[in-house]
């Protein structure tokens, strides 16, 4: 039994060949509602809010989506929560499917999986006329101001955070000694920037020696294994662990606990609740805040303001098209201030959306 009979196969083959030869190819018909949405044309109740992150199974991103929900509630809407499981292709697939639907008054707050995932999302949104805010990942040479529908790109200064915790770590180990670095997913801008920050910090602290750098892919479990190995490899030479995010830092803490080591300082980035607890308990030295709930809300807020006309896209200054958000180094001194992240409705007011800017991305 065959799936197609022989004649059918031939017919299909010929038809295809004919179709191709006829050359009836044309540009994407794509946007039925494409570009149709004039800025400010939308009634608030017609706006569709979409938040997309990697997955709901990590606290930071779950909090992000919750922040989006909080904003949506604030304006009497609901947010469509999309997750793509850290899978770039799947993210693109979801976006293109989303953009094939009703794109009029569509507001998207997207966490691209990697730098390279941003351009197609931007182009798709541009073509379909959906309002887009991206966060974290963007190729450096992609200019937000070149696009109409891509309203803003928000990120934290990774070099700065990497440097801040690097310095904190250097201080914690008394300015000299060996440290190891746990890198994030190697092909993400965040991982590279943060490591570049560490290198800056190392240059400023010449007595601190980087013994080893390994990747643990932003994963707690992988960090645990890698740290265990590094602990045996470097033994007592190891004074500090620099992790490119808190999950890895927490994995490293576990490894230290299992090895019975209490003399190693650990730093991370993101300020996830567990890391804050660890800082409170004194087992972890420092982290840098990334305000997930705020990020989840702010992207939608910017889009919503533009869609409803409260904010005109052309009024957004070039500095506010791509900007670093405010971040704080958290140590045992100020950890209490950050232990319960909450969204503040005032942050999402249309004339306030860029208030946390620390300047344009250079």
């Amino acid at each position, binding site marked *: *039994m*065959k*799936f*197609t009979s*022989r004649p059918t*196969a*031939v017919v*299909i*083959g010929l038809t*295809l*060949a004919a*179709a*191709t030869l006829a050359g*009836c*190819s*044309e*540009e*994407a*018909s*794509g946007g*039925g509602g494409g570009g149709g949405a004039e800025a400010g044309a939308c009634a608030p109740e017609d706006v569709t809010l979409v938040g997309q992150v990697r*997955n*709901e199974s990590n606290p930071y991103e779950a909090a992000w989506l919750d922040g989006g929900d909080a904003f949506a509630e604030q304006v009497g809407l609901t947010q*469509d*929560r*999309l*997750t793509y*499981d*850290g*899978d*770039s*292709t*799947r993210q*693109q*697939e*979801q976006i*293109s*499917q*989303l*953009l*094939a*639907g*009703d794109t009029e008054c569509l507001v998207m707050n997207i966490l691209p999986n*990697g*730098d*390279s*995932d941003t*351009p*197609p999302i931007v*182009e798709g949104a541009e073509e379909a006329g959906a309002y887009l805010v991206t966060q974290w990942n963007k*190729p450096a*040479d992609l200019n937000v101001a070149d696009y109409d529908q891509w309203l803003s790109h928000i990120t934290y200064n990774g070099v700065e955070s990497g440097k801040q915790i690097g310095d904190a770590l250097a201080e914690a180990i008394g300015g000299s000694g060996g440290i190891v670095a746990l890198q994030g*997913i*190697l*092909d993400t801008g965040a991982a*590279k920037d943060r490591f570049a920050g560490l290198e800056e910090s190392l240059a400023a602290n010449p007595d601190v020696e980087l013994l080893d750098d390994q990747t643990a892919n932003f994963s707690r479990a992988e960090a645990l294994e890698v740290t265990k190995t590094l602990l045996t490899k470097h033994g007592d030479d190891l004074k500090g662990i620099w992790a490119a995010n808190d999950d890895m830092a927490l994995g490293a803490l576990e490894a230290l606990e299992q090895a019975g080591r209490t003399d190693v300082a650990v730093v991370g980035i993101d300020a996830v609740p567990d890391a804050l607890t660890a800082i409170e308990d004194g087992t972890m030295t420092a982290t840098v805040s990334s305000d997930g709930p705020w990020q989840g809300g702010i992207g939608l807020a910017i889009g919503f303001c533009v869609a409803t006309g409260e904010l005109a896209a052309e009024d957004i200054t070039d500095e506010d098209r791509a900007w670093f958000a405010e971040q704080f180094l958290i140590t045992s001194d100020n950890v209490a201030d950050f232990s319960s992240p909450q969204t503040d409705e005032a942050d999402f007011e249309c004339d306030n959306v860029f208030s946390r800017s620390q300047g344009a991305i250079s």
Partner: protein
Amino acid sequence: MTTPVLATPAADQAPVSGGPTVGQRLTSFMPVIALVALLAALTFADPDFLTQRSLTAAVRTSAPLAVLAAGATLVVLCGGIDLSIAALCSLSTVLFAMWLPDLGGLTTLVVIGAAGLIGMVQGIGHVVLRIPSFIMTLGGMSIFAAVALVISDAGPIRIVDRDATKWLTLYVGGIVPMSFVVAVIVVAAISLVLKLTPLESFVRATGYSESAARLAGTPVDLVKVAAFTISGACAGLAAVMLVSRNFSGSPTMADNLLLPAVAAIVVGGTAITGGHGSLWRSLAGALVVTLLRVGLPIVGVSSAWEQILYGAIIVAAVALTLDRSKVLIIK
């Protein structure tokens, strides 16, 4: 030898009825039935889903997956498995992005050729060293991933000159995405070649019973190497499609397409043990898997339930499409 052997005529010729029964015909269309059922269910969940634009987008999305699955189907038909397709596809996106500035319009062909060559090397390793294809391609998977990381310096490479891939983003007749047309042409071309030449016999014989095929003088090793080569070349083509969609090459771009591609093959009703199945089935399977991957979240299923539904539906789809009369023992 021309003398008639055994003069005795056949005593009682059994009635001639070799055509497939209605039931068999139905099973052969099961992948399509599953596809339609799924589409209906999604439309029921969200009536807005069934629009021409939405379908166009889904079909466009499915193209790289369909090409990947189609290539790997050949290996599966031969009784093996190719786990390296996704990593090879990622590597190919990097190669494409790196070579494009130098090779221009030729890049597409060169990348497909290079991927085919890499697939061939795996195939040769498999038949010469007698390493099970599962292990050979599992090893290949990690090697390709490492090479891709190293040559790309672990980062995505942007495509500045988009003309080389622009043709893939066109629409035939304004509706059908060119990438999907290419996928269909690939499936049709390979199917036709198989069907019109002795290759189909070779592939099926190899898949059903390798030792019998070998003792019948079938070029088993050649067929297997060819299957791996085509599987590799298809990974290269899928890479070009991905690059045309993402405007960049990245060392991890297609890595997550491995399990969906294998799922597409099995959902299409091709027996994972080899011999039985076809590329058309995998094409239908790829559409089913794509609808599941993008359709569920779009119609508003939450992340947790999406995974549960995905798991349940994919098992149900295979239960529907598998022709059990061709596969005696289900492992």
